């Protein structure tokens, strides 16, 4: 097993290296012809390795499934020894399967989607780089190596959001979006660095085996555990676009659609949830931090859902939905062992149905001449049947209609949210209600998206559109993801297969019964979901959708502007920061610099005075010298004379 795991990262890394370096050394004409297939092959090779490892792990008894592969000693400095190693356990392998399988499908899709882009090779190089970094992140056996992957996916995300930044003014939006994502992620990274520093100060090690052991966590004070937990949460908020660091995700849709599907829906943005679940031991030692995690999840869940209801741009609506769904996962991750398995389960099913929805959106955009405004779609079901059916499966999955995959995972989270917490009876009711309410709003905005795009008898297209399905390279991945959206939950959810699978990592969850009977929770959720969907169906399929967005209520207008998140950031953070910078700049220039410049000015003034002695007349110098000698002689004579007198 040791022999294979590094190849998971190795294949895409080598692919990225070849794709980036070949043109430098050997020119780009040759590699531009087959470079994209090299990218697909690198990702697929990684996927094959993942499958082999998966089957081997299934064949291993549950207690032997968590294996640390020591590769080499990375750095040894004083008390800090960090070994470079990979941890292969059911949790990391779940991620590996998701990343390589969905990643390879999206690679294949991109071959067709990016067909006309002259820079397709570079695109695949970045995609491979992303896959390598993401696998490093999830396979790392220490926080330090995890951080390497963490930064790697941030870099790949930045490069891909700004992929179409050609330097022309029209592409400025791409550059700004890329920078926004990068900078907001840096804020989260500060949290991860601080958490690592705290962990190192406490445990003297950064590998999961030592830092998260019972010894280490057990001896941690309440304050330390809370601080580490909150720092990790900050990191997770940055990477997973959770409140209050959520503003970058909507703008990140400026990147090509396959990027949105892979990075900003299925994998990278869920890294925060992975971090929370991986660090579960610390969170369990800090109930306050756990409560904050649940709160962040709940707020983001509603935030994303409300924003998603008002967006007319199909990609931005999906981005808001992603934010909201990750809010669900975050909420579950904060609920302790009862929630971990469902957080990861929802992450997995969400990876499938949201990637499918994004690729479907890409397919629609491809057919409609890169139009993203849903008010200009309508009636597309007849022209794009495959996209219609596969997106339909994704739609039913995200709604949580049984037996589609979202039902199994989301329902688990809602039930877990209703589990009472000792001493805080309000929590189960508040968070349970939020989760159910979120499901209803999800049903509304996803139904709205689905019927604005495919429903309606009268198309609202712009002139000269002839929508048609793309090449098989585009719709086969859609079919795979559609099948996954439909069946994955049933396969893994029935009888708790997935929960058992994760047990070696997250532990067995003994918990109280929910405050409401389970059948009532399921029924109530389904009822509000169907009501939400029916309302949207009535508004956007039965009634005509205006081509121009109506003015809408105050809430709609706020949601269109992402609930004023940019204005809030601008007022609360950017302006004060600019103000502070301005104060420092003026202080430096007018106080420090001016203060110090008194010294050279004084020297200059004295120089000006003494300069006048240099008349240029030789005779005046001679007189000066003669006078000086005379003075010295007189002084010497006086001194000697006085000395002699004594």
């Amino acid at each position, binding site marked *: 097993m040791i022999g294979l795991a590094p190849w998971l990262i190795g294949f895409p890394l080598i692919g990225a290296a070849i794709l980036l370096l070949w043109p430098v050394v050997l020119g780009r004409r040759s590699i531009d012809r087959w470079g994209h297939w090299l990218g697909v092959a690198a990702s697929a090779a990684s996927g094959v390795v993942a499958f082999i490892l998966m089957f081997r792990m299934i064949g291993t008894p549950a207690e032997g499934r968590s294996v640390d592969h020591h590769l080499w000693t990375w750095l040894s400095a004083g008390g800090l020894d960090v070994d470079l190693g990979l941890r292969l356990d059911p949790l990391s392998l779940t991620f590996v399967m998701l990343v390589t399988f969905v990643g390879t499908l999206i690679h294949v899709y991109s071959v067709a989607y990016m067909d006309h882009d002259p820079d397709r090779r570079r695109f695949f190089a970045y995609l491979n780089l992303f896959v390598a970094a993401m696998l490093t992140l999830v396979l790392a056996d220490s926080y330090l190596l995890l951080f390497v992957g963490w930064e790697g996916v941030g870099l790949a995300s930045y490069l891909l959001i700004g992929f179409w930044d050609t330097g022309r003014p029209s592409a400025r939006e791409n550059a700004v979006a890329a920078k926004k994502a990068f900078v907001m992620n840096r804020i989260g990274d500060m949290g991860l660095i601080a958490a690592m520093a705290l962990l190192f100060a406490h445990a003297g090690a950064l590998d999961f085996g030592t830092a998260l052991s019972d010894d280490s966590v057990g001896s941690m004070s309440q304050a330390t555990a809370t601080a580490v937990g909150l720092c990790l949460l900050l990191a997770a908020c940055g990477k997973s676009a959770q409140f209050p660091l959520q503003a970058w995700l909507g703008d990140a849709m400026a990147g090509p659609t396959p990027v949105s599907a892979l990075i900003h829906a299925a994998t990278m943005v869920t890294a925060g949830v992975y971090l929370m679940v991986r660090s579960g031991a610390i969170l369990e030692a800090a109930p306050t931090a756990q409560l904050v995690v649940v709160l962040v999840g709940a707020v983001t869940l509603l935030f994303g859902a409300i924003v998603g209801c008002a967006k007319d741009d199909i990609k931005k609506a999906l981005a808001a939905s992603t934010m909201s769904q990750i809010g669900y996962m975050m909420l579950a991750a904060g609920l302790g062992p009862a929630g971990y398995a469902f957080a990861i389960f929802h992450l997995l099913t969400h990876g499938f149905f949201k990637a499918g929805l994004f690729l479907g959106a890409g397919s629609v955009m491809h057919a409609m001449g890169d139009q993203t405004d849903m008010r200009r779609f309508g009636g597309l079901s007849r022209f794009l049947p495959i996209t219609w059916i596969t997106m339909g499966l994704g739609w039913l999955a995200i709604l949580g209609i049984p037996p589609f995959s979202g039902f199994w995972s989301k329902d688990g989270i809602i039930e877990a949210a209703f589990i009472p917490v000792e001493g805080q009876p309000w929590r189960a009711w508040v968070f349970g209600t939020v989760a159910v309410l979120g499901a209803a709003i999800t049903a509304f905005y996803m139904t709205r998206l689905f019927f604005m795009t495919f429903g309606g008898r009268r198309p609202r297209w712009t002139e000269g559109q002839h929508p048609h399905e793309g090449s098989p390279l585009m719709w086969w991945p859609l079919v795979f993801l559609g099948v996954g959206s439909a069946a994955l939950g049933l396969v893994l959810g029935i009888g708790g297969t997935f929960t058992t699978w994760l047990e070696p990592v997250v532990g067995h969850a003994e918990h109280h019964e929910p405050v409401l009977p389970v059948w009532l929770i399921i029924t109530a959720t389904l009822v509000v979901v169907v009501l939400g969907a029916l309302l949207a169906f009535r508004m956007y399929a039965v009634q005509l959708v205006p081509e121009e967005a109506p003015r809408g209520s105050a809430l709609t207008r706020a949601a269109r502007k992402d609930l004023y998140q940019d204005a809030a950031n601008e007022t609360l953070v950017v302006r004060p920061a600019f103000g502070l910078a301005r104060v420092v700049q003026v202080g430096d220039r007018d106080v420090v610099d001016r203060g110090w410049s008194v010294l050279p000015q004084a020297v200059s003034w004295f120089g000006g005075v003494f*300069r006048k002695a240099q008349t240029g*007349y*030789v005779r005046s110098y001679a007189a000066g010298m003669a006078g000086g000698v005379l003075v010295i002689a007189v002084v010497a004579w006086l001194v000697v004379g006085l000395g002699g007198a004594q």
Partner: protein
Amino acid sequence: MDITNYVVLAAVLFAVGATTVLLRRNAIVVFMGVELMLNATNLAFVTFARMHGDLTGQVLAFFVMVVAAAEVVVGLAIIVTIFRTRRSASVDDVNLLRG
């Protein structure tokens, strides 16, 4: 003959030389003043050597002569060059290096 007379003569000669340097404008004359001061010094050296019965002063006088000869060569060359370019031998005309 009282040996202090020589010292007084040296002092008078030095004063004449110094006054010449300070008061005259013509470079050649200034130069002559310098020479006069040097020779006044030489006279003082020799006088004190005799006074103390020590040859060091006399040896130093020779050194001064040699250095003065070299100085005359360089100094006259400079004065001639300045005269050629500026048509003047006045030291007050050469004041470009003023502050």
